[in-house]
């Protein structure tokens, strides 16, 4: 394979695709956390053994999260097109992909956050209560603060999952590496393009995972 010729022909396309994929993933991870953290916190503290037990609230939130989690992304993507148009005015391109990505990832994030918060030992919550901390202070200063390393590890998992989802979104007109792999690699039998997109995705995933691991380890003050 002639690399120079290959990159002359596809370099700009691949660079744009990579950039689009990164933008889609970063923004949707960000928005998914904006929605998912409060949702995960609420699910945790409204549980029967939680800080602020509330059966009805807990059940309803649980349902919402489970419904969100059970719809396969590719179906959600097309099913909520009217909603996507309503929010960002289009169902195409990067903005069109971010809406379904966020809708799909927020419940996933909520579960990840819930899992991180549940790792916090109950005696820490009790200790904070014994010092007169309010529910809000306990959420902020104990639950979230103490689970930062675990939340960071969770975030890298979410981020990598969204890479995969973003590729799927590519197939319905979102652009990005998924779109390139399908259009060139699959529909035009250009295996070399397919392979290069896969390599780019692998490299991106490795970088994100490494950053996540190192950050989590740096932030974790236990076991040293």
């Amino acid at each position, binding site marked *: 394979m002639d690399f120079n010729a290959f990159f002359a022909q596809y370099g700009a396309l691949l660079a744009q695709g990579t950039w689009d994929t990164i933008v889609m993933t970063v923004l949707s991870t960000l928005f998914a956390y904006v929605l998912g953290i409060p949702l995960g916190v609420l699910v945790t503290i409204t549980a029967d053994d939680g800080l602020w037990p509330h059966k009805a609230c807990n059940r309803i939130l649980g349902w919402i999260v489970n419904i969100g989690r059970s719809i396969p992304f590719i179906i959600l993507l097309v099913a909520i097109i009217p909603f996507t148009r309503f929010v960002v005015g289009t169902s195409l391109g990067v903005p069109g992909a971010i809406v379904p990505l966020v809708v799909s990832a927020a419940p996933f994030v909520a579960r990840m956050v819930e899992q991180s918060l549940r790792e916090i030992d109950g005696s820490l919550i*009790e200790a904070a*209560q014994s*010092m*007169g901390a*309010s529910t809000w202070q306990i959420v902020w*200063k104990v639950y979230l603060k103490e689970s930062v390393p675990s939340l960071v590890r969770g975030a890298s998992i979410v981020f990598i999952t969204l890479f995969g989802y973003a590729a799927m979104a590519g197939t319905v007109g979102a652009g990005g590496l998924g779109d390139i792999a399908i259009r060139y690699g699959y529909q035009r039998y250009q295996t070399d393009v397919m392979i290069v997109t896969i390599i780019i995705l692998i490299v991106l995933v490795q970088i994100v995972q490494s950053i996540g691991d190192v950050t989590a380890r740096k932030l974790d*003050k236990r076991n*040293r």
Partner: protein
Amino acid sequence: MIKIEHLYKTYHADDPERRHEALKDINLTIDDGEVYGIIGESGAGKSTLVRNINLLERPTEGTIVIDGKDVTDYKGKQLLDLRKNIGMIFQHFSLFAQRTVLGNVMFPMEVQGKKKDEAEKRALELLDMVGLADRAENYPSQLSGGQQQRVAIARALANEPTIMLCDEATSALDTMTTKQILKLLHRVNKELGVTIVLITHSMTVAEAICDRVAVIENGSIVEEGPTKEVFANPQSHMARALLGLEDVDEDGRPVGELDEFDAEMSREFAAPHAASAAEGKAE
């Protein structure tokens, strides 16, 4: 003064199969400035009892009166203010792992909205008092168990409480460290005048530090009095069992004389108490 009157705590009161009476008709008066011990086996209800004092658990029936005020139904700000006045330490220290030692001691003041520089100054004074000023910037995981408990004591004292609750505070520590912690608690009691309510399953701990003790068994207080009297002349089967003078079954019923194995175990576990109690009897 802490006055507990006709306190009952029943879990799952509506479900006959899971219904559990953790506390039954508890009546206690704990005077200002004393060290009060609540002794019992695990599951006897002592943890539940101590958690009713700062309302981490709510009484099913009965009242908690602190300094003449009925606090049983305190909620919201009143409750948070009450807890500010009652420090608490725990068996496994319960320090915040992601905060430094200084950050841990500052936490209760931060929660109460104290200014940061004032909080830091007070935290450093407290750390100095417990002998850990040089570890302020360390994280809990870098400290030994005894050091962690000293940080927890400093943290419990941060808002200048008049009462301190100790939930099996030395049970996870070895003998020497236990002694150091008890010595520190003694200082807290004598120098700062803090009333200490201490729960323990260890007669050694109770004898070392408590002015008065209550023996709790299956959710009821079976014996109460000045430590010396209870130890010298235990009246209840549970107190006698805890002192290694006789054996009881799981429900606290006496099963008669000690057999040879029990006698040996008693000598191993409670020898000094058994000896002092025997003396008391001889008098």
